[in-house]
């Protein structure tokens, strides 16, 4: 119940914060924002991390169906590391090739998820790691 309230409050707080942001922005020099390349890179990392989290959630649901234990911290750390590493490489490659932001972002989303799933497959195939059925 409490996390749901937090989620709801965050969503509802978005609009007044955006309005407050506009008001504050009027007093901030444009130079402080610059080209927003740092924001671009941060959001890229968030996309890659979230795509890895999608794979984690999928395994969590599969583990729940199979009645198996699920170790959140281990899984999230592993998937986060893999997806952000793949994302960083994808961001660099996409930028070097002159891809648009939408192309790079879509690539990060697909690459982060596919990278984690590929790691699952490789661990299962070569190292005999136990994966939840349907994961």
């Amino acid at each position, binding site marked *: *119940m409490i*996390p*749901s*309230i*937090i*989620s*709801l409050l*965050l*969503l*509802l*707080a*978005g*609009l007044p*914060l*955006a309005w407050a*942001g*506009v008001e504050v*922005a009027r007093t*901030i020099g*444009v130079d402080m*924002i*610059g*080209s*927003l*390349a740092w*924001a*671009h890179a941060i*959001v*890229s990392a*968030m*996309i890659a991390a*979230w*795509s890895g*989290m*999608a794979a984690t*959630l*999928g395994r*969590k*649901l599969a583990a*729940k*169906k199979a009645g198996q234990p699920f170790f959140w911290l281990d899984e999230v750390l592993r998937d986060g590391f893999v997806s952000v590493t793949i994302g960083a490489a994808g961001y660099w490659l996409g930028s070097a090739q002159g891809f*648009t*932001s*939408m*192309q*790079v*972002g*879509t690539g990060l*989303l697909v690459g982060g998820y596919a990278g984690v799933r590929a790691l699952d497959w490789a661990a299962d195939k070569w190292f005999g790691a136990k994966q939840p059925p349907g994961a």
Partner: protein
Amino acid sequence: MNIPRGGYPMAARFAALTAATGTAAVTILLPMSSAARSMGNSILGEILVWLTLAATLLGWADLILHDIFGRLILPSLDMHLRHRVCVFLYHWLTAAWFLRAMVLFGSTTGQPIERFVIGSWYVWTGISTAILAVLIALDDR
């Protein structure tokens, strides 16, 4: 879908769907709006907006049928698969917010300060929707 009825979870999903539907509708209906201009003319952007709109329609159908009328969409569907679809729906909405923010931060349309404020709102809403997606995934029902 396999999620609790009413209360704060329903209100949170209502807020998330309202934000996503509103932004997608503004992007489609108002080509000169900040939301539309920031997406540029890319075909991937068009696909993103329409997929988001389709996801929100499914979310609204679930919210109205399940939470208000107490009925399920396709009752014969496996409950586990139903839950996964629901989680995927909110996962997609989160990804769409982040993609919007990334495109906006990488574009050159408008003033940097305008892009910064609107992009920050996208990120904020994306993080809120991400929390919701995780909560739905953790729901034991």
